[in-house]
Structure formats: C-alpha cells, structure tokens
C-alpha cells in the first residue's frame, strides 16, 4: 500500500506523516507540489503546516499547485485523500470539501491534546475506530474554526458527512471542549462520496505510545483496512 504525502513550501507535518505511516507498516513517499502525477499512490495525505506562509488565506495558494490537479483527478476517480490541519484547509479551498476554516474564535493559536468523538463508522477513515472510543489527539492551529452556511451544514448532517466532533473527556461535545469555535464542534468531515476527508487534529502526531497517545493510529488503520478490503476504488 503506497501513501503519497504532498510537500508544499512550508509544509511541516509531512515528515511526521511519513514516519507514522511507515511505523504502522506501510510505504510512504513525498510528492513535491510541482509534480503533476501521483505515481502509484493508493492514498494521498495532504499534510499540516503553513503552505505558502498562509499568505492571503490558509491553503488559498497551495490549491493552485500543479499537484492539486492530480489530487483532484485522483479524488474524482474514487481515490482516498486525507487532509490534516493545513491539508484540511487546502482541501476546502480546492473545493474538494465543503465549508471553510477561519480564525479561532479567541484569536489564539491552540497547541494541546483534545478529545474527538467519532460521529460515524461509515467511512474509510473511521470504520476501524473501536465503537465508543474517544480519540486523544493533539491540535496545533490558529485557523481551525469550521464554518459553513446553514444549508451546507444541513447537507453535511443529512449525508452523515461529519466524521469527528470535539468533545470533553466524557464524550460530550460541549462548548467548553470546542477549542476554536467550530460550528457544531466539527473537527473533521468527508465529502458526499466519502473518499475525501479532512480534520484539524493531527493523528500522525499521536500514532505511537511514546508520544503520549496512539489513538491517531485508528484513523490510519481504518484507511489500511479500507484499501485491503477494496471497499474503495483505487485510482489508476
């Protein structure tokens, strides 16, 4: 199973993603943003960081990188794409995921562990997460407040596209447990076809016990299993 991890100027979680995937037993390689092909990739990870210095808006410039055309084609063919933090922002700017990520409501950069409640096992990114398991995963962002208009939110809910909510240690999605003001405590979503997902928290930074939590591995294990079971089409 081959993971392609994109690299934009000022991506900085690309190495963490490669490390986590290899640690979990799969092949991963970097794909520079000027590449026009993803090669033999089975999965694309759009990693965290500050692509293009977050100039203009987070992800606004990265989405026009040549590699994003290949990612769009890959997603259109049913390939799995996961955007983490800045990668989530890039995917919303690219129109591959609905909504937008704006400044945290308290204007602070938040760097801390939070808890995630998985809203549905019905996706290639969540189906192996043990039922009821809360994921303790770090966030590190200043612009992670998920916003979408009411019509889009209604569509996300109706389509079961919200994958993770911020919650407290008991699994309650309270306002106090919402680190950035995201509507409905949304931490991550997927597209209607369920092959493209994005989340602000960093599963790659919580995939081995020495990092304080290995809960993030469940998201990667879900992806591994989805591909192994061939429950998703893999793009040529």
């Amino acid at each position: 199973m081959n993971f392609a991890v994109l690299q934009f100027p000022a991506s900085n979680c690309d190495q963490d993603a490669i490390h986590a995937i290899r640690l979990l037993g799969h092949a991963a390689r970097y794909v520079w943003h000027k590449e026009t092909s993803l090669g033999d990739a089975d999965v694309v990870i759009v990693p965290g960081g500050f692509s293009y210095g977050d100039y203009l808006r987070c992800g606004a410039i990265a989405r026009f990188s040549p590699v994003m055309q290949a990612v769009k084609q890959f997603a259109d063919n049913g390939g799995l794409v996961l955007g983490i933090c800045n990668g989530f922002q890039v995917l919303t700017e690219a129109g591959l995921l609905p909504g937008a990520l704006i400044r945290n409501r308290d204007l602070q950069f938040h760097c801390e562990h939070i808890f995630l409640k998985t809203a549905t096992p019905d996706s290639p990114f969540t189906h192996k997460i043990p039922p009821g398991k809360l994921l303790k995963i770090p966030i590190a962002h200043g612009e992670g407040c998920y916003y979408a208009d009411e019509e889009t939110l209604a569509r996300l809910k109706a389509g079961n596209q919200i994958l993770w909510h911020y919650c407290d240690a008991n699994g309650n999605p309270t306002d106090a447990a919402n680190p950035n003001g995201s509507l409905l405590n949304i931490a991550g979503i997927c597209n209607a076809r369920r092959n493209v997902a994005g989340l602000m928290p960093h599963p790659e930074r919580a995939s081995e016990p020495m990092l304080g939590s290995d809960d993030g591995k469940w998201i990667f294990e879900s992806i591994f299993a989805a591909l192994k079971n061939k429950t998703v089409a893999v793009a040529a």
Partner: protein
Amino acid sequence: MKAKIIITPKKAVLDPQGKTVQSALAHMGYTGVTGVHIGKYIEIDLAPGTDKAAARQALNGAAHKFLSNPIIEDYKLEIE
C-alpha cells in the same frame, strides 16, 4: 492605473478580530461604535492603457476564484 479590492467577512461569519477591536475601542472611550469588521485591502497595479472593462471582468474572476473565498467573504472591486 490601479485596481482596488476590498475584502470583508460575510455578516454571518464570526469575526473575532472585529469583535476584539470593537471592544478595545469601547474601552478607549470611543462611544457609538456599533460594529467593526476587519478584512483585507488589495491594490493591483495595471499597465497604462489597460482596457477598464476587460480588467474589471478579469479581476472579478480572480477575486471570486482566488483573492476572496465566497464562502466566508464578500468583496468590492474598484478600478481607477
């Protein structure tokens, strides 16, 4: 020739910067301020003799596709 693009957050979108500045203005004693909205101002230099109508059309496209994000922002374009 210059194009000026003013980008503001949509009314429905949370604008924590605007709220914080509004509250600071109130603390400083500036009364009667009922709202502050913080956006961006982009100035674009255009070659002399550029066709105004064509520039307007092209920049509207750029503003919609790239310079602003229509999900969260509105923009105004002026060419002078």
